[in-house]
């Protein structure tokens, strides 16, 4: 299998009023046609990692290092023109808030057609035909009429479908999804997840899917990378992470789930709260909350332990499992 996305030793630091070491030495890869989940709690660096892949971070205040390769292109080295072709054509992104992707002053049809004209160089009428086709693909009812709709005239679920149509109109090789179902109602969320799963197969795309909800990750991801304090602490197949997590953080997360817990019984918890990211980590970021922490954990960065072909754990405890 070839990797369509290769991220090596990515660091992202924001400067300004306060310094934030948002992403600290993240490496990940995504194979062709694979769905990788980025799972983690608020502030763990999921969105920043995803935005770095499209170079969507504020230029002046952001320091990025490491390498990002997508479909053979060195993303951090792309010039403005190549970058704008790259966005939308090679990789495109969907968000929790469709407002970030959809422009309120243009109709859905015009927005999709504009993107198709720009990336594929086809005529306006061919592009509009493509837009119509895409609205059908994402199962927007009365697609023809909906081409003329403005985003605010649509329900939440429908706007989310329109955003997916826009993102996929130019058949990108990689779809970056940042919690696209988090704001939706339960009965709508599952529809959008199933739609994305189906389109991913149909288009043969690779997907990086960001979520804080492990159930959502299970529904859509093949593999998952668990993030904590700007680092990936464990990567494995969805099954491995759910059934036999090795790092104490995903272990604790799974123990704290209310799913299947007896009513009113004590839930497992992880004491404390995530660290401030004002300095770069020089020890295990989870150590202050970890019940198994050893002297080594607070003295140096944890080792990167390769357990299997797909399984990587950043924890001293994993060394015995390797």
């Amino acid at each position: 299998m070839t990797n369509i996305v290769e991220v090596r030793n990515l660091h992202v630091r924001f400067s300004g009023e306060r310094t934030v070491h948002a992403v600290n030495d993240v490496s990940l890869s995504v194979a062709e046609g694979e769905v990788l989940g980025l799972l983690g709690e608020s502030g763990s660096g999921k969105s920043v990692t995803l935005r770095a892949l499209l170079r969507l971070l504020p230029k002046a205040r952001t320091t990025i290092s490491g390498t990002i390769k997508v479909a053979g292109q060195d993303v951090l080295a792309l010039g403005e023109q190549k970058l704008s072709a790259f966005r939308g054509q090679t990789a495109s992104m969907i968000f929790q808030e469709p407002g970030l992707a959809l422009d309120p002053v243009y109709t859905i049809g015009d927005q999709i057609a504009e993107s198709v004209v720009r990336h594929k160089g086809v005529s306006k009428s061919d592009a509009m035909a493509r837009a119509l086709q895409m609205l059908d693909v994402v199962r927007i009812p009365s697609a023809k009429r909906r081409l003329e709709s403005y985003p605010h005239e649509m329900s939440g679920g429908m706007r989310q479908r329109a955003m997916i149509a826009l993102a996929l109109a130019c058949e990108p090789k990689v779809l970056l999804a940042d919690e696209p179902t988090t704001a939706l109602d339960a009965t709508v969320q599952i529809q959008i997840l199933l739609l994305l799963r189906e389109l991913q197969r149909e288009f043969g795309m690779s997907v990086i899917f960001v979520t804080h909800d492990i159930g959502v990750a299970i529904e859509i991801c093949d593999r998952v990378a668990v993030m904590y304090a700007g680092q990936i602490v464990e990567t494995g197949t969805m099954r491995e992470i759910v059934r036999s997590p090795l790092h104490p953080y995903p272990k604790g997360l799974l123990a704290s789930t209310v799913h299947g817990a007896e009513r009113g019984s004590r839930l497992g918890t992880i004491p404390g709260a995530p660290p401030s990211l004002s300095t770069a980590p020089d020890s295990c970021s989870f150590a202050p909350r970890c019940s198994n922490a050893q002297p080594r954990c607070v003295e140096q960065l944890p080792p990167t332990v390769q357990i299997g072909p797909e399984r990587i754990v950043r924890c001293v405890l994993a060394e015995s499992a390797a």
Partner: protein
Amino acid sequence: MTEVTALAPLEDLGGEAQPLLTVRGLTKHFPVRGDLFSPRKTVHAVDDVSFEVAKGETVGIVGESGCGKSTTARLLMHLMDYDSGDIIYDGMKVGRELSLRDLRRAMQMVFQDSYASLNPRLTIEESIAFGPRVHGMAAAEAQLLARDLLGKVGLRPETFANRYPHEISGGQRQRVNIARALALSPRLVILDEAVSALDKSVEAQVLNLLVDLKREFGLTYIFISHDLNVVRYISDRVLVMYLGQVVELGPIDGVWGNPVHPYTRALLAAMPTSDPDNRTQIAPITGDPPNPIDPPQACRFHTRCPFVDTVCSMVAPKLADIGTDGHQAACHMAVAGSGHSRAPGPNAGT
């Protein structure tokens, strides 16, 4: 050591058997301005909602965005007027036998947004002491109480008492809000998405806390959430709402184990799986929830229901008993002789 005194809770009147709260026919419509060509419209936010809350139990309220959960909570708290209906607290009709001032001590609310109910210019300790002061407690006494409550919600008073809301994490702020609610010695606490904004590991901490506090203070909870797993974990009974109405209610195990209303079934089936080898294959229902402005006639679910029949768009189904344990659902399929082709025969079950 100084003794910590709390406000005396409202006296228990009717005893164990009398519900702490009885809600009958509660209704709230919001007029919304139509545009130039259409007349005034109405949001049916809460429509003829009735239920009881027994002393010491936890009642969960679930349903999709806009179905009226928060409006119901605000009406119970008398934060807004209702159009019609009765709210009876421990046998006393609110506004008649029970003053609003007493009601607001007996009933407290915790909101999703942990910032919303904390004054940014008050320290945490001052925020917690504020309510008791308003109700006549001396400053020094209220301060002692506040510090005691901080300890009870797991925040060391020495570390946290003098901090401001923006100086603590979301999970810690939610603990402060819970302490603030408890400062008035309420008997009923309404938690409106109180853990929804928290990370999972922190959510578990706060849920444990809520379970402990309930035991310690003998509290009764109304727990509003869109997370069905959390509701199952914490609730004894549950109400399922759809477009302003209660479509099913009953003991949580009965409703979750044997959901009768097609909407309840859809909600449960829409929950993401926890088993990678058993992913969801089909969406239980299609489309978005309709707009609560001028909702569908008769059964409000008929526009999305997989089992819709002629009667469903003609006659509004009423809540009917499913078992003897208080499990009720409002669907024509559950009522013999309703005219729905899937209803039991007219003599069935008798």
